[in-house]
Protein backbone atom coordinates (compact mmCIF):
# COMPACT_ATOMS: atom_id res chain seq x y z
CA UNK A 1 0.00 0.00 0.00
CA UNK A 2 2.79 2.37 -0.92
CA UNK A 3 1.33 3.95 -4.00
CA UNK A 4 -0.36 7.29 -3.71
CA UNK A 5 -4.14 7.12 -3.73
CA UNK A 6 -6.03 9.02 -6.41
CA UNK A 7 -8.56 11.53 -5.14
CA UNK A 8 -10.81 13.76 -7.18
CA UNK A 9 -12.75 16.74 -5.82
CA UNK A 10 -14.27 19.74 -7.61
CA UNK A 11 -11.73 22.56 -8.09
CA UNK A 12 -14.00 25.00 -6.25
CA UNK A 13 -17.25 24.69 -4.35
CA UNK A 14 -19.85 27.02 -2.87
CA UNK A 15 -20.63 27.05 0.85
CA UNK A 16 -23.47 24.61 1.48
CA UNK A 17 -22.96 22.82 -1.83
CA UNK A 18 -22.93 19.00 -1.82
CA UNK A 19 -19.84 17.78 -3.67
CA UNK A 20 -18.81 14.34 -4.84
CA UNK A 21 -15.44 12.94 -3.78
CA UNK A 22 -14.00 10.08 -5.82
CA UNK A 23 -11.20 7.95 -4.42
CA UNK A 24 -9.12 5.04 -5.70
CA UNK A 25 -6.26 3.22 -4.01
CA UNK A 26 -4.08 0.27 -5.06
CA UNK A 27 -4.50 -2.74 -2.79
CA UNK A 28 -4.73 -6.52 -3.35
CA UNK A 29 -7.68 -6.89 -0.93
CA UNK A 30 -6.61 -10.51 -0.23
CA UNK A 31 -9.78 -12.26 0.93
CA UNK A 32 -8.26 -14.96 3.15
CA UNK A 33 -10.20 -17.54 1.12
CA UNK A 34 -7.57 -18.19 -1.52
CA UNK A 35 -4.87 -20.88 -1.35
CA UNK A 36 -1.33 -20.72 -2.76
CA UNK A 37 0.18 -23.46 -4.97
CA UNK A 38 1.24 -25.48 -1.91
CA UNK A 39 -2.34 -25.48 -0.65
CA UNK A 40 -1.73 -23.06 2.22
CA UNK A 41 -4.34 -20.41 2.84
CA UNK A 42 -3.12 -16.95 1.90
CA UNK A 43 -3.80 -14.81 4.99
CA UNK A 44 -6.43 -12.12 4.72
CA UNK A 45 -5.15 -8.63 4.07
CA UNK A 46 -7.75 -6.08 3.10
CA UNK A 47 -8.26 -2.40 3.69
CA UNK A 48 -10.78 -2.68 6.52
CA UNK A 49 -11.51 0.99 7.21
CA UNK A 50 -11.77 4.15 5.14
CA UNK A 51 -12.44 7.43 6.90
CA UNK A 52 -13.09 10.95 5.62
CA UNK A 53 -12.85 13.89 8.01
CA UNK A 54 -13.26 17.56 7.19
CA UNK A 55 -11.42 20.04 9.43
CA UNK A 56 -11.14 17.22 11.98
CA UNK A 57 -14.82 16.22 11.97
CA UNK A 58 -15.87 12.84 10.62
CA UNK A 59 -18.04 13.09 7.52
CA UNK A 60 -18.06 9.57 6.13
CA UNK A 61 -16.67 6.16 7.04
CA UNK A 62 -16.65 2.72 5.44
CA UNK A 63 -16.13 -0.70 7.04
CA UNK A 64 -14.83 -2.73 4.13
CA UNK A 65 -15.13 -6.53 3.93
CA UNK A 66 -13.49 -9.09 1.62
CA UNK A 67 -16.47 -8.63 -0.72
CA UNK A 68 -15.02 -5.32 -1.91
CA UNK A 69 -12.94 -5.58 -5.09
CA UNK A 70 -9.17 -5.17 -5.27
CA UNK A 71 -7.99 -1.57 -5.68
CA UNK A 72 -11.06 -0.20 -3.90
CA UNK A 73 -12.91 2.66 -5.53
CA UNK A 74 -15.14 4.69 -3.23
CA UNK A 75 -17.18 7.70 -4.29
CA UNK A 76 -19.19 9.62 -1.69
CA UNK A 77 -20.66 13.06 -0.97
CA UNK A 78 -20.02 15.90 1.44
CA UNK A 79 -21.78 19.17 2.20
CA UNK A 80 -19.16 21.94 2.15
CA UNK A 81 -19.45 23.99 5.38
CA UNK A 82 -16.67 26.36 4.27
CA UNK A 83 -13.05 26.21 3.18
CA UNK A 84 -10.89 23.58 4.76
CA UNK A 85 -9.01 20.35 4.47
CA UNK A 86 -10.42 16.95 3.73
CA UNK A 87 -8.40 14.16 5.29
CA UNK A 88 -8.82 10.65 3.89
CA UNK A 89 -7.40 7.58 5.64
CA UNK A 90 -7.15 3.98 4.49
CA UNK A 91 -6.20 1.31 7.06
CA UNK A 92 -5.43 -2.32 6.20
CA UNK A 93 -5.24 -5.60 8.19
CA UNK A 94 -1.44 -5.47 8.37
CA UNK A 95 -1.63 -2.08 10.06
CA UNK A 96 -0.56 -0.04 7.05
CA UNK A 97 -2.14 3.39 6.99
CA UNK A 98 -2.29 5.81 4.09
CA UNK A 99 -3.44 9.37 4.65
CA UNK A 100 -4.21 11.89 1.94
CA UNK A 101 -4.99 15.55 2.60
CA UNK A 102 -7.03 17.43 0.03
CA UNK A 103 -7.81 21.15 0.26
CA UNK A 104 -11.40 22.17 -0.50
CA UNK A 105 -11.48 25.63 -2.06
CA UNK A 106 -14.55 27.79 -1.65
CA UNK A 107 -15.44 30.35 -4.29
Amino acid at each position, binding site marked *: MSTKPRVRVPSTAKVGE*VIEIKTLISHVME*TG*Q*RKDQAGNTIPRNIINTFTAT*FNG*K*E*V*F*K*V*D*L*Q*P*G*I*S*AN*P*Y*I*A*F*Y*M*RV*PGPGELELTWLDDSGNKVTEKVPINVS
Partner: protein
Amino acid sequence: MAVRKEREMKERFFSEAISRREALAGIVAVGTATALMLSHQPALAATDNGWQEALKKIVGDQTPVESGLTLQLPEIAENGNTVPFSISVDSPMTEDDYVKAVHVLSTGNPQPYIATFHFTPDSGKAAVSSRMRLAATQDVVSVAELSNGKFLIARKEVKVTIGGCGG
Protein backbone atom coordinates in the same frame (compact mmCIF):
# COMPACT_ATOMS: atom_id res chain seq x y z
CA MET B 1 7.39 -16.87 -19.99
CA ALA B 2 5.37 -14.50 -22.15
CA VAL B 3 4.84 -17.21 -24.75
CA ARG B 4 3.52 -19.56 -22.09
CA LYS B 5 1.12 -16.95 -20.82
CA GLU B 6 -0.13 -16.31 -24.33
CA ARG B 7 -0.69 -20.01 -24.87
CA GLU B 8 -2.56 -20.26 -21.61
CA MET B 9 -4.73 -17.38 -22.62
CA LYS B 10 -5.46 -18.95 -25.98
CA GLU B 11 -6.38 -22.23 -24.34
CA ARG B 12 -8.59 -20.45 -21.92
CA PHE B 13 -10.23 -18.53 -24.73
CA PHE B 14 -10.99 -21.70 -26.65
CA SER B 15 -12.29 -23.60 -23.65
CA GLU B 16 -14.54 -20.63 -22.87
CA ALA B 17 -15.76 -20.48 -26.45
CA ILE B 18 -16.78 -24.11 -26.21
CA SER B 19 -18.45 -23.67 -22.86
CA ARG B 20 -20.40 -20.72 -24.25
CA ARG B 21 -21.56 -22.82 -27.15
CA GLU B 22 -22.58 -25.55 -24.73
CA ALA B 23 -24.33 -23.00 -22.59
CA LEU B 24 -26.28 -21.74 -25.60
CA ALA B 25 -27.33 -25.29 -26.42
CA GLY B 26 -28.33 -25.61 -22.79
CA ILE B 27 -30.53 -22.54 -22.97
CA VAL B 28 -32.34 -23.94 -25.99
CA ALA B 29 -32.88 -27.21 -24.14
CA VAL B 30 -34.21 -25.39 -21.09
CA GLY B 31 -36.55 -23.37 -23.27
CA THR B 32 -38.17 -26.53 -24.58
CA ALA B 33 -38.21 -28.45 -21.32
CA THR B 34 -39.66 -26.41 -18.47
CA ALA B 35 -38.88 -29.25 -16.08
CA LEU B 36 -35.18 -28.52 -16.54
CA MET B 37 -35.77 -24.87 -15.77
CA LEU B 38 -37.51 -25.72 -12.52
CA SER B 39 -34.71 -28.03 -11.45
CA HIS B 40 -32.25 -25.22 -12.13
CA GLN B 41 -33.92 -22.72 -9.82
CA PRO B 42 -33.27 -24.33 -6.40
CA ALA B 43 -29.57 -24.65 -7.21
CA LEU B 44 -29.33 -20.86 -7.25
CA ALA B 45 -31.12 -20.39 -3.97
CA ALA B 46 -29.51 -23.36 -2.22
CA THR B 47 -26.31 -21.58 -1.12
CA ASP B 48 -26.59 -20.30 2.41
CA ASN B 49 -23.71 -18.14 3.52
CA GLY B 50 -25.43 -16.88 6.65
CA TRP B 51 -26.70 -13.63 5.12
CA GLN B 52 -30.06 -13.98 6.82
CA GLU B 53 -28.43 -14.08 10.25
CA ALA B 54 -26.29 -11.11 9.21
CA LEU B 55 -29.43 -9.23 8.18
CA LYS B 56 -31.08 -10.10 11.48
CA LYS B 57 -28.06 -8.73 13.37
CA ILE B 58 -28.53 -5.40 11.58
CA VAL B 59 -32.29 -4.94 11.80
CA GLY B 60 -33.02 -6.83 15.03
CA ASP B 61 -36.75 -7.51 15.37
CA GLN B 62 -37.73 -4.65 13.00
CA THR B 63 -39.23 -5.19 9.58
CA PRO B 64 -37.38 -3.12 6.98
CA VAL B 65 -39.48 -1.13 4.49
CA GLU B 66 -39.03 -1.77 0.78
CA SER B 67 -38.91 1.84 -0.42
CA GLY B 68 -36.70 4.91 -0.53
CA LEU B 69 -33.53 2.91 -1.06
CA THR B 70 -32.07 2.53 -4.55
CA LEU B 71 -29.55 -0.19 -5.25
CA GLN B 72 -28.00 0.07 -8.68
CA LEU B 73 -26.17 -2.95 -10.09
CA PRO B 74 -25.63 -4.32 -13.58
CA GLU B 75 -28.10 -7.03 -14.58
CA ILE B 76 -25.27 -9.10 -16.01
CA ALA B 77 -21.74 -8.85 -14.62
CA GLU B 78 -19.17 -10.30 -16.99
CA ASN B 79 -16.43 -10.24 -14.38
CA GLY B 80 -17.41 -11.06 -10.82
CA ASN B 81 -14.16 -9.60 -9.52
CA THR B 82 -15.29 -6.02 -10.03
CA VAL B 83 -18.99 -5.38 -10.12
CA PRO B 84 -19.76 -1.66 -9.91
CA PHE B 85 -22.63 -0.64 -7.64
CA SER B 86 -24.29 2.56 -6.45
CA ILE B 87 -26.62 3.05 -3.54
CA SER B 88 -28.70 6.10 -2.72
CA VAL B 89 -31.32 6.80 -0.07
CA ASP B 90 -34.04 9.49 -0.19
CA SER B 91 -33.22 11.55 2.87
CA PRO B 92 -33.00 15.26 3.70
CA MET B 93 -29.76 14.51 5.62
CA THR B 94 -30.43 16.99 8.42
CA GLU B 95 -29.48 16.61 12.11
CA ASP B 96 -32.98 15.29 12.89
CA ASP B 97 -33.46 13.06 9.90
CA TYR B 98 -30.54 11.36 8.23
CA VAL B 99 -29.23 7.99 7.13
CA LYS B 100 -26.83 6.57 9.70
CA ALA B 101 -25.53 3.63 7.70
CA VAL B 102 -26.03 1.49 4.64
CA HIS B 103 -25.09 -2.19 4.82
CA VAL B 104 -24.47 -4.31 1.73
CA LEU B 105 -24.85 -8.09 1.92
CA SER B 106 -24.21 -10.87 -0.55
CA THR B 107 -26.45 -13.94 -0.60
CA GLY B 108 -24.06 -16.14 -2.60
CA ASN B 109 -20.48 -15.25 -1.64
CA PRO B 110 -18.46 -17.31 0.87
CA GLN B 111 -18.99 -14.46 3.36
CA PRO B 112 -22.18 -12.39 3.48
CA TYR B 113 -20.68 -8.98 4.35
CA ILE B 114 -19.59 -6.68 1.54
CA ALA B 115 -19.36 -3.30 3.25
CA THR B 116 -20.99 -0.88 5.66
CA PHE B 117 -21.08 2.82 4.77
CA HIS B 118 -21.50 5.26 7.66
CA PHE B 119 -23.00 8.67 6.88
CA THR B 120 -23.39 11.86 8.92
CA PRO B 121 -25.61 14.91 8.35
CA ASP B 122 -22.45 16.54 6.89
CA SER B 123 -22.54 13.96 4.08
CA GLY B 124 -25.28 16.07 2.51
CA LYS B 125 -26.42 13.17 0.38
CA ALA B 126 -26.79 9.52 1.38
CA ALA B 127 -25.23 8.07 -1.73
CA VAL B 128 -22.15 6.00 -2.44
CA SER B 129 -20.52 4.10 -5.30
CA SER B 130 -17.96 1.32 -5.17
CA ARG B 131 -17.12 -2.08 -6.66
CA MET B 132 -17.86 -5.51 -5.22
CA ARG B 133 -16.83 -9.12 -5.75
CA LEU B 134 -19.52 -11.64 -6.61
CA ALA B 135 -18.67 -15.36 -6.62
CA ALA B 136 -21.71 -16.40 -8.67
CA THR B 137 -25.16 -15.34 -9.86
CA GLN B 138 -27.04 -14.16 -6.79
CA ASP B 139 -29.11 -11.49 -5.09
CA VAL B 140 -27.41 -8.52 -3.46
CA VAL B 141 -29.20 -7.07 -0.43
CA SER B 142 -28.82 -3.53 0.83
CA VAL B 143 -30.17 -2.22 4.14
CA ALA B 144 -30.30 1.43 5.21
CA GLU B 145 -30.36 2.37 8.89
CA LEU B 146 -32.14 5.70 9.51
CA SER B 147 -31.61 8.11 12.40
CA ASN B 148 -35.22 7.52 13.55
CA GLY B 149 -34.45 3.83 14.10
CA LYS B 150 -36.23 2.60 10.98
CA PHE B 151 -34.74 0.39 8.28
CA LEU B 152 -35.09 0.32 4.49
CA ILE B 153 -34.23 -2.64 2.31
CA ALA B 154 -33.63 -3.30 -1.39
CA ARG B 155 -32.44 -6.38 -3.23
CA LYS B 156 -31.35 -7.00 -6.78
CA GLU B 157 -30.26 -10.05 -8.74
CA VAL B 158 -26.98 -10.00 -10.64
CA LYS B 159 -26.10 -12.65 -13.19
CA VAL B 160 -22.38 -13.35 -13.03
CA THR B 161 -20.57 -14.80 -16.05
CA ILE B 162 -17.14 -15.33 -14.45
CA GLY B 163 -17.15 -15.51 -10.66
CA GLY B 164 -14.85 -13.42 -8.49
CA CYS B 165 -13.50 -14.18 -5.01
CA GLY B 166 -10.55 -16.20 -6.39
CA GLY B 167 -10.11 -19.88 -5.54
